[in-house]
């Protein structure tokens, strides 16, 4: 099976099917370009648990060494741990080898700047310019440095997150927490983290060599096993992580999946209770965040989809909490990136300080229904499609920051081209599932009229 269009070079990194479109040649050259961009110095490398990780790691190491950088390998680590490590050790950059939610045979390079943040769009454009010029200032044999390893990253990150929450209050509750790591990058780090918070951990899918047992996206339909586990074990909370450990979805004590878009709302609700301020989320995030912010008289700002866009706006506004509807939670004072560990710690703190069950915390906010749909679409067809959508909703209130987002008082729909796959993403949220489905249906039928 060939995927001629499987290579995606975009702000989320360089992504493809390992060995097929993500070849070792491409990885080596991109790593050399990145090393050229960062300048000589330590570059942190970490991976998730995909079987191609060794191949991609070695190719990246070779490219980095050739331009005088010192690769520092962390082995298997969650993405937020790598980003934290880059900043903590004052490295010149980082490369995380993970395709996040893509299927197992994919892999990707995610480039991290010295501030621990993913490269911004303009920085990434400079990097791809270097790559396309294809001339990297190689160092001579005498100036090549050696590879290093560092196994302190996970513990150091844990320390940072623990000092940011009310550790005593959490520990005293001895929570029973179920955990599904999808056999991903957090398989070792997450159970340890929860135990450090006094939790009794009931884990599944924490075996990094076994491949992904489920679709890595922590959406409700993928985490039935965790839901059963929560009920059987009588856990107070269930945490579902994605393969690179940056996204978090929750299961309440009754074994109900809250939906990955709920995570940022609950964390924002709790964080704003500590200290208010603006909240920043992306266009595709549930309006639950608006409801949570309203409880604390805070304002919600929306940006284009993508961690960098959210973070940039957060810095501009001095926002202390933000994230995305995909389960990404960002508290920049702790770690300026999507961090599922920060999310877990805040949820536990909310449970501890409110002396409430997770279902009770959730029920402080209204209920909505969200429908997410993918529609296969070649890149060149994305803009014409979006034009059609604009035409369809031409009389409604519209936000064109990223694709088309149409707003009504109690519902919205967002249609945009994906950064990571050749698809159009359609997301609608409404008071009932039928309403949401009807919105999506309207767009689908307009784009692909039913055959007569």
């Amino acid at each position, binding site marked *: 099976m060939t995927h001629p269009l499987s290579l995606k070079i975009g702000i989320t990194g360089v992504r493809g099917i390992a060995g097929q479109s993500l070849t070792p040649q491409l990885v080596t050259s991109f790593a050399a370009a990145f090393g050229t961009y960062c300048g000589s110095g330590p570059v942190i490398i970490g991976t998730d648990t995909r079987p191609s990780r060794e191949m991609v790691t070695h190719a990246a190491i*070779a490219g980095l060494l050739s331009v005088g950088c010192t690769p520092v390998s962390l082995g298997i680590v969650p993405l937020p741990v790598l980003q934290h490590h880059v900043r903590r050790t004052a490295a010149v950059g980082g490369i995380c080898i993970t395709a996040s939610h893509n299927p197992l045979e994919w892999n990707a390079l995610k480039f991290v700047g010295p501030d621990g943040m993913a490269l911004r769009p303009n920085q990434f454009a400079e990097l791809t310019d270097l790559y396309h010029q294809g001339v990297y200032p190689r160092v001579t044999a005498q100036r090549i440095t050696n590879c290093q390893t560092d196994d302190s990253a996970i513990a150091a990150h844990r320390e940072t997150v623990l000092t940011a929450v009310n550790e005593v209050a959490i520990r005293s509750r001895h929570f029973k927490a179920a955990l599904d790591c999808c056999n991903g990058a957090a398989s070792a780090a997450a159970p340890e983290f929860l135990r450090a918070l006094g939790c009794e951990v009931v884990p599944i899918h924490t075996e990094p060599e076994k491949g992904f047992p489920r679709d890595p996206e922590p959406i409700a339909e993928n985490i039935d096993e965790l839901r059963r586990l929560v009920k059987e074990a009588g856990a107070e909370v269930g945490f579902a992580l994605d393969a690179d450990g940056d996204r978090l979805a929750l299961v309440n004590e009754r074994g109900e999946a809250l939906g990955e878009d709920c995570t940022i709302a609950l964390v924002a609700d709790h964080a704003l209770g500590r200290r208010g301020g603006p909240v920043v989320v992306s266009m595709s995030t549930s309006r639950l965040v608006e409801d949570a912010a309203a409880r604390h008289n805070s304002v919600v700002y929306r940006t284009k989809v993508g961690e960098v866009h959210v973070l940039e706006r957060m810095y501009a506004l001095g926002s202390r909490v933000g994230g995305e509807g995909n389960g990404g939670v960002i508290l920049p004072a702790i770690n300026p990136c999507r961090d599922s560990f920060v999310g877990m710690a805040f949820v536990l703190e909310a449970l501890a300080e409110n002396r409430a069950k997770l279902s009770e915390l959730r029920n402080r906010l209204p209920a909505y229904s969200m429908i997410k749909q993918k529609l296969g679409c070649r890149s060149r067809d994305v803009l014409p499609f979006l034009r059609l959508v604009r035409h369809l909703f031409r009389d409604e209130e519209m936000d064109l920051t990223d694709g088309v987002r149409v707003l009504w008082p109690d519902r919205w729909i967002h249609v945009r081209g994906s950064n990571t796959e050749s698809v159009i993403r359609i997301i609608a949220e409404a008071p009932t599932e039928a309403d949401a489905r009807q919105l999506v249906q309207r767009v689908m039928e307009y784009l692909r009229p039913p055959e007569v």
Partner: protein
Amino acid sequence: MRELKISTSWVRGVVGDALTPELAVNFACAFGTWAEGSPVALGRDTRRSSVMLRSAVVAGLMSTGCDIIDLGICPTPLVSFAVRELGCAGGIAVTGSHNDSEWNALKFIGPDGALLNTVRGEELLDIYHASVFASKPCGHLHLSQGSPGMVTRYVEHLFAALDADAIRERKYRIVIDFCNGACGGITALFLRELNCELLPVNDAPRDTFAHPPAPTPANMIDLLPEMRVTHADLGAAVNVDGDRIAFVTNEAFPLSEEFTLPLAALGRLARRPGVIVTSLSTSRMIEAVARSRGQHVIRTSVGESYVMDRGLIEGAVLAGEGSGGVGALPFTSTFDALLTLGILLETMATRDSSIGELARELPHLAMRKGELPCQPDQAYRAVESLRVNYESQQPDCTDGIRVEWEDSWLHVRVSTTEPLLRVIVEAESEDRADELYQEAMGMARRAAGREKGV
């Protein structure tokens, strides 16, 4: 300077703009495609750049679906041994070998443990140039695993080729300069088992070398003083990946690397009579030794892959060159410094002779070696002019031009590693050597210079 050399059995170059990790990835992908996804053995020397190139090779091999037997820092002959022992499709040694430290190379080894011969090497180059590589979607994790016990098995394998008991009785004291390469540890093990005392020089594996790695008298500046002080039975210099060796006598007299092959032949032919294969550039000392044992010598183009390939075909007992690289067949299919050392110790022990006495058994011949820097077109014209001039002598034109007389010979060829012409002359007397050298050099210079002057 951008220096890249690609032959059928290796790709070597100056690390930086010429020998890049992308090039190494491409060659590893070509090799993995050639190996059809079977396991490949991998070793490297101690150079800094070897770490980078090794990573590039690992990535390339994995992407073509090959599992990797990773031998870490090790001599090239060990990679060769592992390939045969484990039935690998081939092996890659990341080593600049005798080249200076700014250079590095990938040496490609076939399933027989020998450097790729021209037929196999051309297949590899065709795949490389076509740039269509096998691509296995990484459905499972490709292992890069060590092979514990391989060093011990290798050393035991060498003992089977030697009269180890004869050596053990002598309790030799031996000084060896390892040039901070890959051979210190394995040689210590080998000599301990042979009841010898090793007095090591520059034995710590380091990413920079104490001196240039070619084992020649010029690079024995650390070795000779140690020999004078210790009065050891034998001195030796080994290159960083253990395929070449040169010796120093018990009187601390340095022997040129040309002595290695005839010294090995002195005792070896008595134990295992047979044909010897060497290159056109190697000293005639080997013919003298072979003749005295009733054996004969076959000469091939210069380079280990030619010499060893012919050795395997002829069923030779020794194959080696004037560079100090010698292999004893069928025990090894590469040049192997450790086995050569063992053979010399065996010869000393069974003949009850010192290394100095053995060296004095060899005929005294005068050798002159020189280089004439010139571009490839000038070089070929110079060779042609020599061929015309010596036509009546019926020169051998296998590799450049080799002319033979009763008391002397000359060999002029184009270097495969540098833009220059190599001139080698050997004669029974110093005067004749000088005369022949001046004659050949002058002719070559005029031929090249005349072209340049026009």
